[in-house]
């Protein structure tokens, strides 16, 4: 997949480590002839609900769809406002727009997490839902978000696409709000071998509603009460996910170990790594640092065979798709400034400590060397 010495992702390594166990599982689904819905999907829903300690989980085709179905279940419609950060992946905002609602952006803290003070200020009579995004596995301060939501009688939908297994006060991400949306995309910590997603609910009524809505709105084979969507998790993907769920804690621990190693190695004079909140357990879907001369560093690392990425270089409010919302450069200064400084380092569970060390040394050297050359 890549010729880099230290690749950003390594799905081939994951497959090699699992194939002996996973192949027979996939084969049994294929042999069953049940490819859409069925027991395999229900089994995954039960397993992931137990993992999250959430009363109800409904599997769907992607986290984007999870957000659309989740927002729709909360009654979001044309004219409503939904508060969300501008530094997420585009899907968070797209889900709001697809329902005809208005995304109201709120800027972020130095940690890249939604700023609760600004959330409170953004609330209007039209605010229907707050959508915190636990970007990269880092938890938004859910004490404050839940308090604000409760005080204003507003629902919370968590975009937990990147944060399965992250906790805040020991409680799993995606289970604070009425709705929690998760992604099982191939690049996520709990990943399928295709698109996939699921939604956690506190309410059985909402969960059942989404179960109907994900399959044409069909109550039974022949009856439609309300138009729905087609957004089902494939049985094959559900089987893969049920298997991988057992390894998720191990995956997260490996990633957390890699993050701790980076923190101890990277020179804080040049590399800003936001602290974890003492109340959170960050699952490190991504490990994002903030640096000056980001693009130079990225190019340098690439020339050293180290793969990196940027999540995300263009804030949502500055995308041409979002022009109609009327924002411009300067609308969300923290997000804009960070978009020029953030760099995501490889942190996948297949990296060795030596490889993490190589990355950290290469980064430190880049800054130390350029410091020396500018001294001269």
């Amino acid at each position, binding site marked *: *997949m890549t010729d880099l010495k230290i690749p950003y992702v390594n799905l081939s390594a994951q497959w090699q480590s699992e194939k002996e166990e996973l192949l027979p599982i996939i084969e049994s689904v294929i042999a069953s*002839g049940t490819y*859409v819905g069925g027991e395999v999907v229900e089994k995954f829903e039960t397993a992931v609900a137990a993992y999250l300690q959430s009363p109800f989980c409904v599997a769907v*085709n992607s986290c984007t769809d999870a957000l659309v179905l989740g927002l729709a279940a909360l009654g979001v419609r044309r004219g409503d406002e939904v508060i969300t950060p501008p530094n997420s992946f585009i899907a968070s905002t797209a889900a709001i727009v*697809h329902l005809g609602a208005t995304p109201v952006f709120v800027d972020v803290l130095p940690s890249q997490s939604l700023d609760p003070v600004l959330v409170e200020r953004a609330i209007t009579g039209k605010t229907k839902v707050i959508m915190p995004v636990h970007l990269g596995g880092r938890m938004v301060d859910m004490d404050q978000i839940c308090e604000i939501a409760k005080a204003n009688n507003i629902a919370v939908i968590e975009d937990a696409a990147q944060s399965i297994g992250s906790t805040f006060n020991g409680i799993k991400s995606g289970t604070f709000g009425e709705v929690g949306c998760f992604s099982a995309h191939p690049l996520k910590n709990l990943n399928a071998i295709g*698109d996939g997603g699921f939604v956690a609910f506190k309410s059985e009524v909402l969960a059942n509603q989404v179960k109907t809505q994900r399959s044409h709105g069909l109550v039974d084979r022949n009856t439609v009460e309300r138009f729905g969507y087609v957004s089902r998790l494939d049985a094959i993907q559900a089987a893969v996910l049920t298997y991988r769920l057992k390894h998720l804690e191990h995956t997260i621990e490996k990633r957390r170990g890699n993050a701790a190693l980076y923190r101890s190695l990277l020179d804080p004079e040049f590399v800003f790594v936001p602290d974890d909140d003492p109340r959170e357990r960050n699952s490190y879907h991504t490990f994002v640092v903030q640096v000056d001369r980001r693009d130079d560093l990225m190019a340098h690392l690439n020339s050293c065979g180290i793969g990196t990425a940027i999540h995300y270089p263009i804030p949502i409010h500055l*995308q041409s798709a979002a022009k109609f919302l009327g924002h411009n450069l300067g609308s969300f200064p923290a997000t804009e400034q960070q978009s020029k400084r953030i760099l995501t380092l490889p942190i996948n569970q297949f990296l060795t400590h030596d490889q993490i060390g190589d990355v950290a040394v290469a980064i430190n050297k880049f800054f130390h060397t350029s410091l020396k050359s500018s001294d001269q």
Partner: protein
Amino acid sequence: MKVRYSYLAQQFAECDDLWLQLKEFVKTGDFTLGAPLVEFETKFADLIGSKYAIGVNSGTDAIKLALVAAGVKAGDEVITAANTFVATVGAIAELGAIPKFVDCNDTFCMDVDLLERAITDRTRAIVPVHFTGYMTDMRKLMPIAERYSLPVVEDACQSILGEIDGRKAGTWGASGAFSLHPLKNLNVWSDGGLIVTNDHKIAEELRLLRNHGLVNRDEVKILGYNSRLDTFQAVVGNWLIPQTLDIASKRIVNAARYDAGLGAISGVKIPPRPDGFKIVYHLYMVFAKERDALLSFCQSRGIEAKVHYPVPIYRQEALEKFGSHERFPVTDRHAESVISFPCDQHLSNDEIDFVISTVAEFYSGIQ
């Protein structure tokens, strides 16, 4: 004898070579919009005879995204057939558009003679549904659509390789939507769909729409959706696609055997088989007197007969919000009289003959 409806266990009983290909594929990690998907899209476009094919997550999404590309927005009216599967209407409703229905004729497709009176100033697109493997009479429909400058999105989910005068379903309108659902004539191991078009601009827009509107990894040109055909399933599709013509042929042969046998029974009426139509029999459907009793009788004899559909879409509760009280008499009559029998490529002649003799026995009993 038991005559089952789903043949999936038989279809994939011997697929060791596919299995090997999948094992090779999963090693690559190329799971979204990967190389086998591009290969499948190319092969599918060739099969249908269109320039472009774009893989999406379902037939429903194929219709929905094709409608977005056709410019359909909230408040617009979209004309479709009153007897279709819920997905056609669901796709229209998802966009906030308003479905307007036209009754069908005995080919289970829109009666094009009734189309023009359904067109209003707010009509933005026409979605003919090539239901059960028949085709809507596109020879009559296209001139009307052109006269009113209305884009046509063909719902070809059930009619892959269906034709009129040698021109395939999905290639008449601006775009054609296909389903790869496990029960379709070309089926993968999950939900899946494709859109075909000859228009480069539409193809480009559809590629954006299915993948969050992303022009590249970081730039979002339009707000899109997440609706990709899994590359894993494209591997299955590539394996199946050489068999597609044979599958259609076998279904046509099966239907001919049914037609001959059931056509001789007085309680059964075979739908018209118009000249120039290649019907691919995703469903083999006939009209039957005492339909409900026949259905129970067949089921009691181990034949998995079905009804598509007992409650017409236009009479579903979900439609109430559109506040139309229009009635569609042909569609209503069909809901009470149609019955579907298994017609797939794995069905044996013995099984077909058993269905025919069972139906004959039923009617001899009630005379």
